[in-house]
């Protein structure tokens, strides 16, 4: 075997686009998402603890979240995930590639829409004394804990989404300018992250909005 046929790509160049084995970036993102699962896992455990010990307080508090905004936001995020999946698919073949930047911009827009709705929801909640501080609206034991976890979990989720919006916008701009580094492999890696943020919300939505709504 001579050096020219050396099948291992020099990672110095691998990181700069052309010829990078696609599995490097994808595997890296999967490992990172593994880390993220455990990160949110600590919050989920705290929630589980609270709900097991104070089912009444958690149920009462859960009834005060704005289920309509939460539901619309769920739809918004799911749609954005479909859009970024389409962006990934269009980036793979030449005639479709002109759609990639538009779909990415649309993805970012939906992500932004989620954040705006979340902001409106936060504002309503502050006015309804649902931010746990002096004068907190609910008196059941555990309700305060529920809302602390609600604020913490949704804020950390929103932070992840905001980072996602920034990254997707960057890729939307770069694919529009036909920058070579914004290739379909990288869009797929980005989409993995975006889907993950979506999946986190799929867990948060029932935990925070839907418990005890049936009664």
């Amino acid at each position, binding site marked *: 075997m001579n050096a020219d046929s050396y099948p291992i790509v020099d990672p110095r160049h691998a990181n700069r686009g052309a010829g990078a084995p696609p599995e490097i970036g994808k595997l890296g993102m999967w490992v990172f998402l593994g880390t993220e699962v455990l990160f949110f*896992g600590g919050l989920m455990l705290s929630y589980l603890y609270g709900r097991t010990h104070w089912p009444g307080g958690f149920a009462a508090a859960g009834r005060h979240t704005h289920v309509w905004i939460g539901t619309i936001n769920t739809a918004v995020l799911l749609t954005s995930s479909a859009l970024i999946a389409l962006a990934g698919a269009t980036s793979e073949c030449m005639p479709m590639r002109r759609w990639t930047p538009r779909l990415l911009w649309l993805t970012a827009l939906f992500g932004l829409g989620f954040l705006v709705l979340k902001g409106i929801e936060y504002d309503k909640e502050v006015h309804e004394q649902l931010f746990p501080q002096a004068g907190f609206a609910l008196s059941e034991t555990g309700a305060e804990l529920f809302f602390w976890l609600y604020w913490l979990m949704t804020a950390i989720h929103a932070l992840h989404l905001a980072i996602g919006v920034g990254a997707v916008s960057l890729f939307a701009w770069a694919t529009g300018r036909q920058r070579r580094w914004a290739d379909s492999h990288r869009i797929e890696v980005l989409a993995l992250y975006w889907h993950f943020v979506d999946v986190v919300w799929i867990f948060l939505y029932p935990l925070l909005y839907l418990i005890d709504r049936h009664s």
Partner: protein
Amino acid sequence: MNYLEDGLTLRSWFTTTDHKRIAILYAAGITFFFFIGGFAAMLIRLQLLTPGGAIVSHETYNKLFTVHGVIMVWLFLIPSIPAVLGNFLIPLMIGAHDVAFPRLNLLSWYIYVTGGAIVLLALLLGGVDTGWTFYTPFSTMFSNTWVAITLAGVFVTGFSSILTGLNFIVTVHTLRTPGLGWFKLPLFVWALYATSVILVLATPVLAITIVLVIAERLFQIGVFDPAHGGDPLLFQHLFWFYSHPAVYIMVLPAMGVASEIIPCFARQRVFGYRLMAYAILAIASVGFLVWGHHMFVAGQSLAASMVFSALSFLVAVPSAIKVFNWTATLYKSSIRFDAPMLYALGFVGLFTIGGLTGLFLASLPLDVDLTDTYFVVAHFHYIMVGGSVMAYFGGLHFWWPKATGRMYPEVWGRLAAAFIFFGFNLTFFPQFILGMLGMPRRYATYPDRFQVLHVMSSAGAVALAVGYLLPFAYFAWSLRSGRAAGRNPFGATGLEWQTDSPPPTHNFDRPPPAPAGVYEYDPNAPQPAA
């Protein structure tokens, strides 16, 4: 051109993406913190020379053992073997040019330095007195020291661990030289791979726990406070879910180092290579399921305690497999006691004592008696200092010729190993006895009857300090005056020995062919005279 000469400016070092240079940057960082943490330890031992406390107030004493723990765990031990030796060696051992994400690798170092700087800031502002475990409610409600800033530093440092782990996992999966299957990998690579999995899966739990503690301290969110419906035990569960696997983050890489050195100086293939690899994976997996043994007296249910006790005993099985297999590797072999071998053998012996005393502590009835005594302190120092630090120094000696192209002075190397082994045992063995006699940990003063043992321990610490200082002197000396090492001064197997010393920037001129096997030492071929 070798990697050390490829750019001589400071800028070329601080913007490098070469895994070997990043390893050197890490080495500088952890050495700096090792001396700060070590200095705190010396002050602790000085304080404990007399029953009434020799030099500092109780408050300062609390800050001393906290800063010692925080710095030694997060800024020295966790990055030590992985970020220094792992960074340097993994790409070389698998025949790659670099790690999978070289720029991310450099970013990890900057994150590490930032985290370390934040911890130092807290130290300069006045320190923190909670102990490295940051137990609530003391850390969240009562301590008037710089808890949040210290935690922020640990939080930031955690991301450098996660990114290093991520980098290693992807590197080992994707960048092995053609033909180098998993069961041809050196056990060092196996150990670092398993360590990386723990880094990636455990560290985020520490991160979120720190977020909760800081939120609890600043806003009283109540998640750890019974008055608001929370539970301090929840903190302990979350904290030890990270911090017990963190013990394996510290000791698995040490096992990897020993598994390289022992066969080389015994001229024999590692006994039971496959089982050694499986044992590494078993320790890493079962290690995630034993955290509750830190909470036997914390109010955990008896059923939970019994399960955690049984699982802790289970970890002893793969650990024992490793010890037996290192020993079996030595059986009927022609052993040479060069400095790296002395460290490696010291590691095996001290790790065995640390591991066996761990079984004492995993037994419920004994732990009720021994928990929070010096027995625990001695136990984990046997694992972390006797085990991990010993192996780290062994690895430094073993791969020093590879990294620098120069031999360290052999006689001095052996002398330092002897100092460290002797000093370590004199420091920590009396602490087992102190613990059995009932001396609790973390106290600035003690009854008169414990003084003899405490003085022995402090005297040992001096010998240990000499042992740690010696290598820095002769390593520095060897950079200029050491004998040229050549490619493979110890006649070792492994791809890292097939390139020049120091290696060229791109590691290999042409792709190294995968060897037919692993650790293929010929017991009849003499080892080159080092």
